[in-house]
């Protein structure tokens, strides 16, 4: 367990909303990351840090649709869920990861270190899930 994950599991701060917003903001510290957001599975934006040139709501809707499709595909293949998916294009890439309450989405430039971003996404997912899990490990938010 990483120190940050341990901290999150002990997290009982004043606002989990602020906590997830901070997590989304952390992605901007990574080199070549353009923006990041946390989207509910129905496409509503939970938290977003993207440049003004990016239309948040269409992006959130598309990411949620992709996430749901990936989860359905994973189920069809006999997997419990997908962890992270990456979509790349000439002008950049997008990472989508399932995080319990929704999907973590990260937009990156073409020269971005994909492994570093993937690792950061995985850690963010673990932190979000830990923040939503009650201490006794029983069911969290549906």
């Amino acid at each position, binding site marked *: 367990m990483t120190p940050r994950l341990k901290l999150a599991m002990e997290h009982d701060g*004043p*606002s*989990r*909303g*602020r906590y*997830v917003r901070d997590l989304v903001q952390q992605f901007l510290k990574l080199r070549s990351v353009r923006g990041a957001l*946390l*989207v*509910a599975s129905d496409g*509503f*934006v*939970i*938290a*977003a840090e993207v440049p003004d040139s990016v239309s948040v709501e269409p992006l*959130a809707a598309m990411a949620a649709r992709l996430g749901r499709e990936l989860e359905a595909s994973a189920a069809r293949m006999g997997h419990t869920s997908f962890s992270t998916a990456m979509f790349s294009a000439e002008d950049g890439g997008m990472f989508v990861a399932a995080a319990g*309450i*929704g999907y973590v989405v990260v937009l990156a430039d073409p020269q971005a270190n994909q492994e570093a971003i993937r690792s950061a996404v995985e850690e963010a997912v673990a932190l979000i899930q830990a923040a939503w899990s009650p201490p006794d490990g029983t069911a969290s*938010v*549906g």
Partner: protein
Amino acid sequence: MHEVDAARVQTVLERFLADASCAATVLIDRGGESLAVAGTARAFDVVSIAALAAGAFSSTAPLARLLGEREFSVLIHEGVKESLHVSTVDDGSILLAIFDERTTVGMVRVFAREASKKIGAILAEARTRPRRPGADATPATPEEARSALPRRPS
């Protein structure tokens, strides 16, 4: 509602308020009566908001039935600055959240769902609790509120 249950509901509302960064949150019954309030609701006309929100909720029920639904579980009224999230807790109560641009609809939805589950469980438990005269802080249902009113001598 017993004082202990009212305090538990208040704790859930306070937590919801902090987590979702809402301006105010109000638990109301289906008749529009306020059961519990948290946040800067004093800046708003809570009585009117509660009554109108309950009315708006019940007025959409026929529309929901046309779609084959019993009722809509969430209504969102989005304004330029202030918005209102209205969601069902159980058959007797509704959770209102007043919020502004400091948070998002998605954030409020996530935490409202969680708060509704917790409040619903508290209210269900409260309704099964044996009644002790004089121990109630607020009525748990509209029927309780009506029965608590003084009766005219016949």
